[in-house]
């Protein structure tokens, strides 16, 4: 199989190296176009995300093509510390298919099972189709590869629990808030402490509908900056206890050496008689919130260990279904192998069809000389009959031929077909790939009624 991938990912390179390999859309289009023009690569797709840059191309049997693929990434990462090559990996043939399927299913992601990668694979495939060359860089082989990769990703996610549960602190926060409050659209949040983790959680909450986020920090300017980024409002640090009653979600991440939120403050803000629900996520170490607050009837308190434990549980559950996901991928890799192997007989099938089409034409000419009285409609009917008969006769042998080749009996089948049908030239160039992939001749029923 003359298919390859060359790339760099979070497995092989730190972020400062990965960012040197990252392609913008315009750069990717230029690089792919260059591969066609300069190296004659027929098909190529470039996947570039924050965790990976991978170039899939076909055919890659020629070492020059492979070198051209490597050069695309090497040139992009020019100036990366050390040599760019030390971060690169290559996979060929079925390994590259297996790799893309695993990538699309999220099995190769930094956060196992994350779903965003599937959209990024789809974007990369669509970007390749936008490269202004003819025929498209996403030709028949990569078209098939990426289409199946997307469906494999979907299959793995629907048939396993690989994508279930929250796998980051921010997504746990959103999931918890959702299970407590339902829709987050009318909910308000207060961020106490302008730390990076709190901001990530706040951003995730904002994405899910929380509006008017309040931010408080010892250094008020930092609170103002974060509030601007979140389209919220900064409040003075000392106002926090009195503003607690306005919010449903409290995220704390101050650098204070002791708890900054006492039970009295919470009780003062949420008198038990009012029975209001408050979700508190304490991301600080040491903790900002007195643990006893979690015992209040309508307060749900999660500290950073609780949240990490939830994330770890999720990842453990995802790891547990890895064997199932890998089995699905193996099934699909095998399906791709069969499809690809079937492509090897495309030239033979074309010859076979041409051969018998020629015979059909000759026989029709013979018939027209003897049935000169036939009307044009009748002639057309006879012609259609001959096409359908030929289609039906060739359908089964063509299907069997593809199956036989997929099962590894290429030489036997090809020789037999050539011999039996007197096809030239003898032998078959198995390395040759055909862009035209003829379908099996139509197995139309000869007995069905048809419009005339």
């Amino acid at each position, binding site marked *: 199989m003359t298919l390859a991938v060359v790339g760099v990912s979070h497995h092989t390179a730190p972020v400062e190296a990965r960012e040197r390999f990252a392609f913008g859309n315009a750069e990717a289009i230029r690089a792919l176009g260059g591969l066609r023009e300069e190296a004659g690569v027929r098909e190529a797709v470039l996947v570039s995300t924050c965790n990976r840059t991978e170039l899939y191309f076909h055919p890659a049997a020629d070492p020059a093509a492979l070198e051209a693929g490597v050069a695309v990434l090497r040139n992009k990462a020019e100036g990366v510390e050390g040599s760019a090559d030390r971060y690169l990996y290559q996979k060929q043939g079925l390994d590259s298919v297996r790799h893309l399927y695993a990538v699309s299913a999220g099995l190769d992601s930094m956060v196992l099972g994350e779903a965003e990668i599937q959209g990024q694979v789809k974007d990369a495939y669509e970007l390749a189709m936008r490269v202004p060359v003819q025929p498209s860089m996403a030709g028949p082989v990569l078209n098939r590869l990426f289409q199946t990769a997307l469906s494999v990703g979907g299959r793995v996610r629907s048939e396993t629990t690989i994508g279930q549960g929250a796998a980051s602190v921010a997504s746990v926060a959103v999931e918890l808030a959702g299970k*407590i409050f339902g829709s987050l659209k009318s909910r308000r949040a207060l961020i106490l402490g302008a730390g990076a983790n709190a901001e990530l959680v706040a951003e995730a909450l904002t994405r899910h509908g929380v509006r008017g986020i309040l931010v408080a920090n010892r250094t008020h300017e930092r609170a103002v900056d974060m509030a601007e980024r979140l389209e919220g409002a900064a409040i003075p640090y000392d106002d926090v206890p009195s503003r607690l009653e306005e919010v449903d979600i409290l995220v704390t991440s101050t650098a204070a050496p002791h708890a900054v939120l006492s039970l009295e403050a919470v009780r003062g803000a949420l008198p038990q008689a009012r029975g209001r629900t408050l979700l508190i996520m304490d991301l600080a170490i040491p903790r900002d919130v007195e643990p006893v607050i979690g015992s209040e009837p309508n307060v749900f308190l999660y500290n950073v260990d609780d949240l990490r434990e939830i994330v770890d549980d999720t990842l453990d559950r995802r790891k547990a279904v890895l064997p199932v996901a890998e089995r699905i991928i193996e099934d699909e890799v095998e399906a791709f192998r069969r499809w690809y192997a079937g492509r090897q007989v495309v030239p033979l099938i074309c010859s076979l069809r041409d051969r018998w089409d020629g015979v059909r034409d000759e026989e029709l000419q013979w018939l027209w000389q003897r049935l000169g009285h036939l009307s044009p409609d009748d002639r057309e009917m006879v012609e259609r009959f001959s096409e359908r008969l030929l289609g039906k006769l060739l359908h089964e042998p063509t299907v069997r031929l593809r199956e036989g080749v997929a099962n590894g009996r290429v030489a036997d089948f090809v020789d037999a077909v050539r011999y039996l049908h007197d096809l030239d030239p003898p032998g078959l160039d198995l390395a040759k790939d055909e862009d035209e992939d003829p379908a099996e001749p139509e197995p139309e029923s000869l007995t069905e009624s048809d419009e005339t």
Partner: protein
Amino acid sequence: MIHYVALLLYISALTLWVRSFLEGGRGRMAPVAFGIAAAGVAAHTVALARFTMLHGELPLVGLAPSLSTLALVIGVGLLATIGLGEVRRVGIVLIPLVILMEGLAVVIGVQPAEGALDFQGAWFAFHVTLAFAGFGGMAVAFSAAVLYLLQFSTLKAKRLGLAFRFLPPLATLDRLGRIGLVAGLITLTLGLALGWAWTVRFRHSFEQTDPKVIWGILTWVVFVVALAVRGRGSQHERRGALATVVGFAVVVVSYVLLRLATSTGGFFL
């Protein structure tokens, strides 16, 4: 025969709901369970319609017909959640109630009562239907409250397992419980008022010691208390859920006790 079909469909729906629970609500199992439950309600409706045509009376008088009708009303209560997404998962609590009542009715035999009530006709039909609708509202509120308490304890214990994933959000369950109680209280109040008005008009008396009257008023009080405990807005959600569960238990236990303590001649109570 059709009652058995309905029962079988209800049991199938429950099985799928349990499987959906064990899968954390993933996949299409829960919607399919709801669809099968809906088919069960349809079969159940046909069964009771057939009873009405065969016997020339609504299935509201004898114990078995009444239980079966009550089960149907609860099933219809479940169907009312059709457009509410995850809320439909209250079926995992509602359907066992339906199975229990319909199962009891089938075991007893869904036949007309031997005696005859003097309170009959359209007034009676409205009275019983409204009262049963009230009980159906309470059953929906009870289901929502059970799931609320389960989700609440899951969140408090920080065990985000199957229950966490399967169950709807707390706020949603609280809202459903409140709607069930309010709707149930309104229909029960109308049902009781109709019964009272008929008794006063045609019997010129009101038997305060009648088990039906005692049970009806007790149920009404349970509704009022459960709603009062909730307060307004989102206050006291958990306390409200607890009150609903306890209230539902009080209603069921008092029914059983009254039934054991009184000779009902094959009537509902």
